[in-house]
């Protein structure tokens, strides 16, 4: 049978503080003074790695590694989704895969992000856009390269663009991006 030490080990690291201003006597007046104390704030790090599955959308990412842009289509109605969707929202049926790599594509809407979420701040300014495809009912969120982000113009809407694929795929939707058609 073993007992734990009767004194907790003192460790280095984190916050080490001594004697934050405090009343010498803990009488009612002194304790009331504590109501005026400024708050103590500490850092609480939080980091976690998730194992994320692309699940039924996985072939879309596999397509990007092979320089193919896939879309989903309802077999019965032909309604086509540029952003993968395993089941059609109108018929409820499972969709099929089609290849839209060569379809005419245009900028439907865009912005230039001069700020961003923390993860993307180093990449600013970047052009974020929704792209429309010939014969496709929905849009695809993507990045546009090959234009000057400091010269943003509504004329970019309607601009013909074409997909480009990363050579070294990262298995992210940014494996495809678009540039203006020359």
């Amino acid at each position: 049978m073993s007992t734990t030490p009767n004194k907790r080990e003192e460790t280095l690291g984190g916050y080490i503080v001594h004697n934050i201003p405090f009343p010498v006597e803990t009488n009612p007046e002194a304790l009331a003074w504590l109501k005026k104390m400024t708050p103590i704030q500490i850092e609480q790090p939080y980091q976690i790695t998730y194992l994320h599955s692309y699940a039924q959308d996985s072939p879309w990412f596999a397509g990007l590694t092979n320089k193919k842009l896939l879309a989903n289509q309802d077999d019965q109605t032909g309604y086509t989704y540029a952003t993968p969707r395993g089941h059609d929202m109108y018929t409820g049926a499972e969709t099929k895969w089609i290849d839209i790599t060569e379809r005419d594509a245009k900028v439907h809407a865009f912005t230039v992000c001069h700020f961003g979420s923390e993860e993307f701040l180093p990449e600013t300014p970047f052009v974020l856009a929704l792209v429309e495809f010939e014969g496709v009912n929905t849009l695809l969120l993507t990045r546009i390269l090959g234009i000057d982000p400091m010269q943003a113009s509504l004329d970019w809407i309607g601009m013909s663009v074409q997909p480009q694929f990363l050579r070294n795929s990262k298995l992210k939707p940014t494996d495809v991006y678009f540039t203006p058609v020359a």
Partner: protein
Amino acid sequence: MRPVYAISGGVSKFAKSRPDKTFAAIVKEAYDYAINDIGLDFPTFTRLVDGSVASYFSDHFSRQLMAAIMAQDYLGLIPKPSHRVEGGGATGGLCFQEAWKSIASGHMDICVAYGFETMSHVETWKGNEFIALASDISFDYPVGGFYSGYYAMMVTRHMKEFGTTVEQMAHVSVKNHINAFHNPYSQKRNRYTIEDVRNSPMVAWPLTRLDICVMSDGAAATLLVSEEGLKKLEDAGAQIARPLVKVTGIGRGTDAMRMSDRPHVDYDNFIENYATQQEKDSADTMAYYKKLWEHGTRYPGVHSFRAGRTAGNMAYKHAGVSDPLRELDFVELHDAYTSSEIQTYEDLGLCRYGEGGPFAASGKAFMPGVDYGLDLVDAPACPVNPSGGLIACGHPVGATGLMQAVFAIWQLQGSVSQHFGDATLQLDAPQRGAIHSHAGTGTYVTVSILERE
């Protein structure tokens, strides 16, 4: 369904940071204010209240799961029934409506709806990252997840489609900031000009920093009761303001999480499923829409919020509103962006789709008797965001929709002067107002109608 009355409310001072109190203690500020406002002491109200609904958006901001039960506990409401609701930016609006349901269904006679968010615990750009996680993490977030970017894309389409201008958007910012100048609860109390808005740092083209709301720490609470609940409180000594404020309509709508998935429906589909009755009844408006569609407009695309139109139509039908611009005396709507206020004018039928820009600059949505330093051609018709809205008051997400409810209650009670210490923002005997709460890129939207009895 039974009649539901919104009898009282409280709002903590919205601030960039409130390290002086825990989130639960900030909720208590708003809660205590609402109880004090009906003249009851804490133990008496605690004895009478049947339960609550709690509202906060993100577990990430406080790194505290089940935060709502900690608030319930701190408010002394345990073991009474409660549940948390969450629906992005519309969380507060959903909470208000869930409390309404608790009363209307007969499940409770007295229900408190409280909400909060403490967003200051992380850096601003990390906070933006948390918010962006409320977009599809397979296809949206990794491309550059940033809500200001999403809304900026919507408005470039709105500008291209309808000719909306950045100056029209800036009118919204000037209006809401100057309104908030008279609201002591607001986070930002500044007078800006159109030039100030346009010259502030560009965040996501064409939205500048002054086109966008700020993150906040804050809380809000409202008390909803049935006729029986009213009697119980008054029998216990409550002094409840007359005229009473009744919740006469609620509506909700939803849309696809990914903006890219929104449909682009044809004219007939739009008229049949989305046009307001007022629009259907107007040959001029039908012809106007026909022309828009002939020029290529499709609905909702990314320029309009189908969820907002659905929620508005539902609430109007419930409350018997057929001409919102004339039958609503004010609207507190979710202006996370100046552009989304303009989009929402259209969704709520204050003007036709495509006319939100000119409407914003016309003066119709401005407060009477307030000097904005602008040349406005029209007199106020239906002031929008008389409180200053999210852009100026701040947007502590779980509290925001309830803040709107509190300001609407005070507006209809005629008690703005009492609560603000300034009568500037009190409308002259308003009869009916709407509150509008909005999530994501338009994924959940609630509209509730409040009326003076």
